[in-house]
């Protein structure tokens, strides 16, 4: 859990989003930050969705036609830059966000996880906070 200095060979980030889209500004602030990160030549190791942030990975969001569709914007960014996007499994299950695996496991009527997001445990966050140069949190404001 030691930090590299900025002049180290490879500077990398883990981004953690805990605020939901269309409720907080967190996902959009995080996306602007993420774009600036890759534009500066840094690596994003992983984007981790926690708490209400898991709603960003919903495949069923329909944004009004004159509003930005934040889940799709994020999904496109993750695909373009091959960044893993992970929703915390405990947060996701409680909030009704499931992939096909969890759908079967809990015998639910549907799944609603937007690709390329995946569902995984807090270990992914722990790993990010150990290995990345910086872990930056994007919480809901107020």
């Amino acid at each position, binding site marked *: 859990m030691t*930090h590299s*200095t*900025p*002049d180290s060979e490879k*500077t990398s980030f883990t981004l953690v989003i805990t605020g939901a889209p269309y409720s907080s*500004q*967190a996902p959009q*602030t995080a996306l*602007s*930050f993420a*774009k*600036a*990160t890759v*534009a*500066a030549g*840094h690596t994003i190791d992983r984007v981790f969705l926690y708490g209400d942030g898991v709603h960003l990975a919903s495949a069923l969001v329909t944004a009004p036609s004159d509003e930005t569709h934040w889940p799709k914007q994020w999904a496109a960014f993750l695909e373009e830059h091959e960044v893993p996007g992970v929703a915390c499994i405990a947060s996701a299950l409680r909030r009704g966000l499931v992939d096909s695996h969890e759908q079967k496991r809990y015998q639910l009527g549907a799944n609603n996880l937007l690709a390329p997001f995946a569902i995984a445990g807090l270990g992914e966050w722990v790993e990010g906070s150990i290995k990345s*140069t*910086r*872990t*930056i*949190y*994007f*919480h809901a*404001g*107020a």
Partner: protein
Amino acid sequence: MNQLHTLHILNKTPDHPRFSECLGTLGPDDAVALTENGVLGLVASKALGLVQTYALESDLSARGLSDDNLEAATIDYSELVNLTLQAERVISW
């Protein structure tokens, strides 16, 4: 190399309890980056200005504050990324 001890990213309004919690933990070599509703601290909080303060230009503009004579250096996201790397640690409030 690391003159900046801790960068505090603050996105809460000055009325939110976490705003004052943040101000209560500022050290002399720290800096504050105001984002989202946190930029409203520049028109309402008297406790800012004790440490180096930055504010996101896009959030100032959205809130009609970009032309004001504010006690903060305006930054864009690229500068915010740099600040997170210059600091020894980053805390998002």
